[in-house]
């Protein structure tokens, strides 16, 4: 696959044009800014830039959009750490340790860890994309209802296990999240469920406003309680520092494992990024010598999800480019951009346009490298947010959330949903519940219900047919293993001593 020198040279020539290089930088900067704003995630960022690509050649336009995509995913982690607001489902896992570390006066360090993890995950996934894309595509087409059901159950259980202390409380929140996604018209037969006579609720509770409300608004109310508290920090927390070589070596296992987890899970169409990030987090926690420290602001707790969620970018591009099936909402817009350029993403794309393929691989690589420098500038600024008094943050974040959520689809209904979710989030957080299982239940609910019902249709009454899925069965086995691992190993150790 990598033997076509002509196409490679053509790709390099196209990439090294000044306009392409300029768009590379512009894309990263725009992506970062929009990624940081609550509510406005990668899909909107790419859609906003789409009209500009009408006047560009395929390579510069795809570079611009890929720059925006990668940077917007990374930008979400900056606000997750500095303000406790994940811009997307992908950044939910980062809040736990990232924001804790930031509030503990180690902001510069936390942001440095997240930047390093993001870049590492991004680079690994590009390399995977470049060398084994066809293999990964083969894996991606195997994912149907039964496999999606398995991965959603898996994702949900992983989150319940890593978030919060009480299992019953975690499960309650997970179930509540799932339940809330059933509101609106039933996709399969148009039944009105809990629409309370309002057609606004036909689309159900919209995802982005719900998540912003759950995290950002509840954070606003909790911060308001502490408006007069002085935050303790010393000068060193303002200094952004990338982890040193020795720290990296210590984290190498987490980095590599999370990158691979992110790449593989990112391939699965749907909400791969959020599941990938949480899975990486729980793996890091499970393998850690001090799992009880997770959630209090440990390096691994930031590095694992951040590495994994950026690794999903490369992963999500696999089905997008090789099958024409977007791996995420952002990838869907990217796909549209390619179609506008007269290309047909699908099994034929790389055969017909090998130069474009090389341009995408090399471009993504360059984007990740460049993001180190632009990211450093951005987090230098973000680290200073800790000097901003809470009293200023509270109304500003509140206004930003209102406006951001409204502008997702110019919808005032969105603002109402955000407010409701904010109050719900505030209440449950005050009562010692973790909102991570609630949010992930909400993210996975539609996939879970749909794949359950479609699996039953496929099975047509046969239990054997229902489990006739090797991939699904391995996922269930992995789930059983992660749940039983702790007790079994504990037992084993006890016996030994």
């Amino acid at each position: 696959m990598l033997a076509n020198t002509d196409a490679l040279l053509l790709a390099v020539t196209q990439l090294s044009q000044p306009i392409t290089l300029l768009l590379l930088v512009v894309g990263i900067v725009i992506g970062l800014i929009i990624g940081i704003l609550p509510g406005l995630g990668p899909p909107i960022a790419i859609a906003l830039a789409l009209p500009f690509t009408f006047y560009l050649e395929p390579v510069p336009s795809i570079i611009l959009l890929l720059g925006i995509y990668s940077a917007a995913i990374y930008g979400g982690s900056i606000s997750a750490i500095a303000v406790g607001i994940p811009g997307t489902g992908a950044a939910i896992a980062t809040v736990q340790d990232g924001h804790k570390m930031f509030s503990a006066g180690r902001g510069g360090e936390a942001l440095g860890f997240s930047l390093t993890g993001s870049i590492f995950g991004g680079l690994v996934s590009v390399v995977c994309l470049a060398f084994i894309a066809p293999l990964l595509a083969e894996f991606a087409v195997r994912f149907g209802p039964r496999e999606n059901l398995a991965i959603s159950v898996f994702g949900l259980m992983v989150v319940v296990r890593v978030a919060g202390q009480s299992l019953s409380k975690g499960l309650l929140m997970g179930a509540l999240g799932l339940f809330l996604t059933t509101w609106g018209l039933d996709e399969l037969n148009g039944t009105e469920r809990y629409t309370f006579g309002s057609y606004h609720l036909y689309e159900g509770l919209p995802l982005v406003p719900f998540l912003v409300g759950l995290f950002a608004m509840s954070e606003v109310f909790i911060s308001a309680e502490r408006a007069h508290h002085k935050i303790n920090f010393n000068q060193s927390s303002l200094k952004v520092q990338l982890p040193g070589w020795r720290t990296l070596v210590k984290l190498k296992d987490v980095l590599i494992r999370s990158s691979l987890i992110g790449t593989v899970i990112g391939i699965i169409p749907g909400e791969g990024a959020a599941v990938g990030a949480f899975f990486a987090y729980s793996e890091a926690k499970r393998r850690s010598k001090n799992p009880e420290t997770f959630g209090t602001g440990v390096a691994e707790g930031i590095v694992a999800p951040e590495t994994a969620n950026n690794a999903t970018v490369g992963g999500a591009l696999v089905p997008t480019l090789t099958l024409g099936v977007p791996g995420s909402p952002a990838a869907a817009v990217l796909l549209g951009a390619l179609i506008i350029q007269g290309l047909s993403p699908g099994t034929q794309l790389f055969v017909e346009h090998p130069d474009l393929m090389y341009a995408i691989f090399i471009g993504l690589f360059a984007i990740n490298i460049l993001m180190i420098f632009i990211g450093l500038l951005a987090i230098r600024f973000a680290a200073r947010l800790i000097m901003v008094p809470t009293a200023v943050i509270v109304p500003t974040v509140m206004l930003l959330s209102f406006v951001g959520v409204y502008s997702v689809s110019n919808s005032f209904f969105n603002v109402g949903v955000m407010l409701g979710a904010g109050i719900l989030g505030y209440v449950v957080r005050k009562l010692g519940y973790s909102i991570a299982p609630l949010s992930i239940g909400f993210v996975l609910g539609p996939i879970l219900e749909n794949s359950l019902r479609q699996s039953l249709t496929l099975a047509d009454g046969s239990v054997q047919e229902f489990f006739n899925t090797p991939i699904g069965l391995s996922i269930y086995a992995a789930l059983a293993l992660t749940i039983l691992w702790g007790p079994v190993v504990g037992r084993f150790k006890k016996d030994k001593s």
Partner: protein
Amino acid sequence: MLTQRVSNILFAILIIVASIWFAIEAQGFKAAGLLASSGLPSKFFPQLTLGFMVVCAVIVAVLYSLKKIDGSDKSDTVYKNAAEARQGLAVLAVAVASYFTWSTFGFVTMAVLMGPVCLAAMGIRSIKIYITVILLTAFIYAIFTQLLNIRLV
């Protein structure tokens, strides 16, 4: 003060009552189109999750009444003191009021009022902070309307 124990038990009961109500409501779902080839009716998944919630809520309520679990922030009460409760709830009220202000009087009125009222609700006295927040409001307005071309009305 409101203790974690009492409020958690009350919340669990609230969840149980609400779940039962929603589950009964789901009995009345009517399929609009008949294209359904799905093996499960529309009410199945909501009722399944609701049932699950009831089980969890019962366990939580029982554990709390037996004093088996405590609040996650290791305090016994929901709020540390009256001042914190007042500030949190006041800002929550401001958020709700802002929503209605926006729907009735338009975005600009809401945006201008939100910052200062929020600060007043938290009992902030520093003029510097008021000015900063108003400047930031203008900045956000400019970013969304000018840079992102979004109509805020």
